[in-house]
């Protein structure tokens, strides 16, 4: 009897008269409210030779990591949320490496299973260097992001956890040091334990990367550990808990950060942040912050240019879906899918609710176009987690990948057609025809279901095609190598800030191509608890040359380069007039000389 009281105390409200015979009509009206769905004709067509675009090369790549969710048979919300994956070239050898977080037994043995840092050997394989690097994590891991917060040329690593988060400073010699306490970025000072997505971004454009850390539900030993949902005992929904506080840290430039959450106007004590992403959506030169929440309105924090933010999510039209329904917002991805010069927005959602695509109207707002673009139908039958925009076939149009997986173990017992483990979704951008689902054409490996969570994109092989790395809950990650073969061309640009932050996070690159402008912004965070390679990758279609490349740096500087040949990996340093090529250890460059092994020389931050 007492347990029943807990149920109804979710919404102590005034009784409504449900007892009249008008019940069906009333309910029909209620059904209409908050639902997003509309049927669209599924447009699926065979393309090319039918060869799968992606191959699962996890094992052959030497990746042996297996994520530990928690105690088997003890479903709980914490065990259903991880892992995130994040990509960066931590040793500067030109090959993107990656980090993946691990969970643990949630207190049974009192142990934590270590995270993993995988070094890209440049030959299609990876080596686990976690122990040598000293980045095992300390607690139940959720996600990670990379950012060179001290501009010393070496990307540093921030790990969000249950409990205090960790900031690992990259020492530049293959090792890291835990500087969390010194930096003051543990993110527990306001009581938050369950951290989620994070992102480095330079919100005040002072050349130093600041840090936003999301807080998820207030879950602890005294909270409901499991719930009966649809007749099965499973992990509780986020609605069973209150939310937590978020945190914005200003980089002081001396290895420390200051928590400025309240002063900035971003503070919420009861948020359920999942994914966060920062980008300049209104093209005013200042990065704004997007936060997707679980069962609450999403936030669009407009950068007011004075150290503060204003939440304009509702005004901008992206806070909620369709008819006002909140989203289970797991993924945030910002990208210009229609090449109109403004960043559009993708947020993933719950199974049956479909994901959401908003077109940036160029006037400070967003219009949802999920149904018209085919997103609604394509994502209806999956529970979407990480992923986002990427051009997998280099045709110049941003496609979409979403990692899928349910969060209620045993859901099949109540609904045989809904599966806990699910296959991922690959949507090809057909331009005006919208997106079409290519998932079923990706071969038998792709059809193996999993508990997809974090996802990141990177050209791990530096071959000109973007690969996908997916963190799977309670299993090994999936490294999907892009087999290329489209015949299209690309250009890959690594930006190095000098007045701007070293990683050039917030820099905007625009290329002109056949009368169309393509834009990309260097973005930290995004996806779900993950981060992709910071290098910008453009598909060029049939074009073999890029007539113009414009770079708008966070410092305010603008540079333009002309007539860059396609199919190259460029390095553009802020303030330098010439463009160089990226170097990859162990691979000869155009001049025939082998690129030296070693790191990019440390660059000093140029004081403003």
């Amino acid at each position, binding site marked *: *009897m*007492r347990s*029943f*009281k*807990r*149920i*109804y*105390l*979710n*919404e*102590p*409200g*005034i*009784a*409504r*008269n*449900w*007892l009249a015979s008008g*019940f*069906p*009509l009333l*309910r*029909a*009206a*209620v*059904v*209409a*409210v908050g*639902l997003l*769905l*509309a*049927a*669209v*004709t*599924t447009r699926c067509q065979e393309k090319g030779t039918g060869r799968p675009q992606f191959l699962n090369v996890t094992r052959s790549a030497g990746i042996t990591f297996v994520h530990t969710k928690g105690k088997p048979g003890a479903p709980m919300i914490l065990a259903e949320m991880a892992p995130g994956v994040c990509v960066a070239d931590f040793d500067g050898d030109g090959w993107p490496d990656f980090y993946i977080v691990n969970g643990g037994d949630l207190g049974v043995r009192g142990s934590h299973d270590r995270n993993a840092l995988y070094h890209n050997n440049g030959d299609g394989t990876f080596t686990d260097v976690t122990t040598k690097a000293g980045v095992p994590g300390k607690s139940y891991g959720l996600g990670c992001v990379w950012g060179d917060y001290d501009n010393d040329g070496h990307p540093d690593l921030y790990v969000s956890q249950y409990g205090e988060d960790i900031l690992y400073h990259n020492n530049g010699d293959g090792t890291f040091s835990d500087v969390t306490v010194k930096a003051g970025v543990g993110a527990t000072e306001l009581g938050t334990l369950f951290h989620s997505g994070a992102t480095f971004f330079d919100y005040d454009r002072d050349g130093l990367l600041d840090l936003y850390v999301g807080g998820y539900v207030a879950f602890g030993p005294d909270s409901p550990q499991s719930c*009966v*949902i*649809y007749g099965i005992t499973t992990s509780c929904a986020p609605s*069973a*808990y*209150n939310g937590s506080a978020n945190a914005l840290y200003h980089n002081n430039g001396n290895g420390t950060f200051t928590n400025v959450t309240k002063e900035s106007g971003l503070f919420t004590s*009861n948020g359920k942040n999942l994914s966060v992403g920062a980008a300049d959506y209104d093209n005013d030169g200042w990065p704004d912050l997007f936060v997707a929440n679980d069962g609450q*309105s999403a936030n669009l924090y407009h950068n007011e240019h004075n150290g503060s933010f204003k939440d304009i999510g*509702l*005004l*901008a*039209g992206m*806070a*909620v879906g369709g*008819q*006002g329904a909140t989203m289970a917002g797991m993924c945030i991805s910002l990208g210009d899918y229609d090449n109109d010069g403004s960043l559009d927005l993708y947020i993933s959602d*719950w*199974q*049956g609710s479909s994901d959401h695509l908003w077109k940036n109207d160029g*006037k*400070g*707002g967003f*219009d949802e176009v999920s*149904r018209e673009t085919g997103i609604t139908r394509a994502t209806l039958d999956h529970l979407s987690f990480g992923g986002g925009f990427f051009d997998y076939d280099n045709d110049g149009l941003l496609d979409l990948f979403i990692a899928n997986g349910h969060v209620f173990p045993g859901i099949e017992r109540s*609904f045989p057609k809904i599966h806990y483990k699910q296959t991922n979704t690959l949507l090809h951008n057909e331009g005006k025809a919208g997106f079409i689902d290519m998932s079923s054409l990706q071969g038998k490996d792709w059809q193996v279901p999993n508990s997809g969570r974090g996802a990141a994109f990177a050209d791990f092989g530096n071959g000109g095609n973007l690969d996908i790395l997916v963190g799977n809950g309670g299993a090994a990650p999936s490294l999907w190598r892009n087999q290329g073969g489209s015949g299209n061309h690309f250009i890959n640009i690594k930006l190095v800030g000098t007045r701007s932050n070293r990683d050039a996070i917030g820099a905007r690159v625009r290329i002109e191509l056949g009368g169309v402008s393509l834009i990309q912004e260097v973005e930290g965070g995004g996806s779900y608890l993950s981060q992709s390679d910071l290098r910008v990758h453009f598909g060029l279609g049939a074009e073999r040359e890029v007539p113009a490349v414009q770079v708008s740096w966070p410092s305010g500087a603008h540079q333009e380069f002309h007539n860059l040949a396609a199919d190259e990996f460029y390095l553009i340093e802020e303030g330098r007039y010439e463009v160089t090529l990226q170097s990859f250890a162990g691979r000869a460059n155009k001049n025939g000389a082998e690129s030296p092994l070693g790191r990019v020389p440390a660059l000093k931050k140029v004081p403003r």
Partner: protein
Amino acid sequence: MRLFLAFDQLWNDAVRFLLLFLAAELMGFAQHSAPASAAMSRGAGKAHLAMGRQLGAEGKWKEAESELRAYELANPDSTEAVVLHGEALMKISQPFDAAIDLRRFLEAHPDAVRVHELYAVIAAGPLHDPNLTIDELNTVVRLAPRDFQAWESLGEAYLDEVKTDEAIRAYQHANALRPKDAAVAASLANAYARGGDEEKAVAEFKRARALAANPNEPVAAMATVDFLQGQFLVEHGSSAEAVTVLTKAIAFNPRSTDAYYWRARAYEKLNDHGRAVADALKALEVSPGSKEAALFLIAQYRKAGDMEKAQKYADLAQKITDAEQAQQTLGHQLRDTLDKAEPLLRQGKYAEAIPLYESIVQHLPTFYEAYFDLGTCYAQTGREGDAEAALRKYLSFQPVSADGYAALGLVLAEQKKNEEAITELSQAIQIDPTLVEARKALANEYLQRGDPKAAVGVLLSARNVPDAEAETMLAIALEKTGDFPSALVAVNRALAIDPASAQVQQLKQELLSESAGARQH
């Protein structure tokens, strides 16, 4: 006499334990109705039913609830009684009390279909618990597979949860039971549409429309078809047709927020922004809390460049969202508070529990059980005045609660308000004659008042429950009336129950010597 006084002191301590006992009874699934029903005649029960119905018909639901509660107490196993009382509780905005009542009934009567139905209604409505709604409706259709309305409601509940396959199956069941019901045909079509099966949706809407056109069908059926099909048409590009059918839906129900909203969407697609905005404003006028209408207006004004108006509706949407959030947060907080309070009460940490229960009753002023628990805590911490107030408040919600009267009587006794204590304790045992502890307390009050005869009368009625303390009190009371032989019989019964009690043995010795003395005289 000395023993009596010593016993009296012991009894004061026992009062405190008695309160705890009563609190435990209330917390630990005590059935209010079971003992009370024995005290009420069938005739009285039926009178309450008749009065309750009449008052309900007059709209006097508070009074009706009181009558129907009494009817339920008199008929604890009656489905009709619990359903009527539950409905009355809903009418006076006490949904969770109704839910508790229904839940208790279902524990003893798990196959009571009508009770499951009402429970599902409460779950879908005030409790906002879609999982519970679905579970209950599934139980109903399992127990009553030909319950058309349950299948239809189940379809709606599944659709709310975006379980379109299950919704379709439920509607198909409903449709099989009433193949000519236009509204369910339209609902099935809507479910097909939500599930992405346009072809079936179109066919089913066509069938629904044909059924609704039958002159024997109620007008509401066509309105339902118009409304649901209108939405479908909006989302499938037939905006002009959507306007036509939604206009008809509005004509039937001019206060349908959703019909205005969807027509606004249709007008938007026809680029008639003036009418789109007008309809959205109308939707808001009908339902000021319509978030979708507010969101629609934000987009319209933003596109028109009227940022001031866009901001106005953004502020409104934020207010609505904040209210929703506050409700949910409050619900969690209250649940957390209750989770903390109950263990504290069980552990005897009354002082710590008090602020938690105070918070509960502040936010849930009709959560009557909390008043009882609060009263217990106050009493245990020496705040008898506050305890009295809390228990009186409890009894205002539960005027037929024997435990409530007993607890109040004890608290009054503590405050030496003997006459009032006697009144309340008498009420308690009138409602529930088996309340031995209340009898003992009442007997004690009578003894305090110097009325041992009355104490004897009260205690004699508790004879069917072997209780050493009661027998001892009876012995003392009989001794006071001069009936030594009966007193000795009573004390011997006490010793038979508790032979090791030194106090009872001493009492026996005293009685024997007093008895001997009396005989000598």
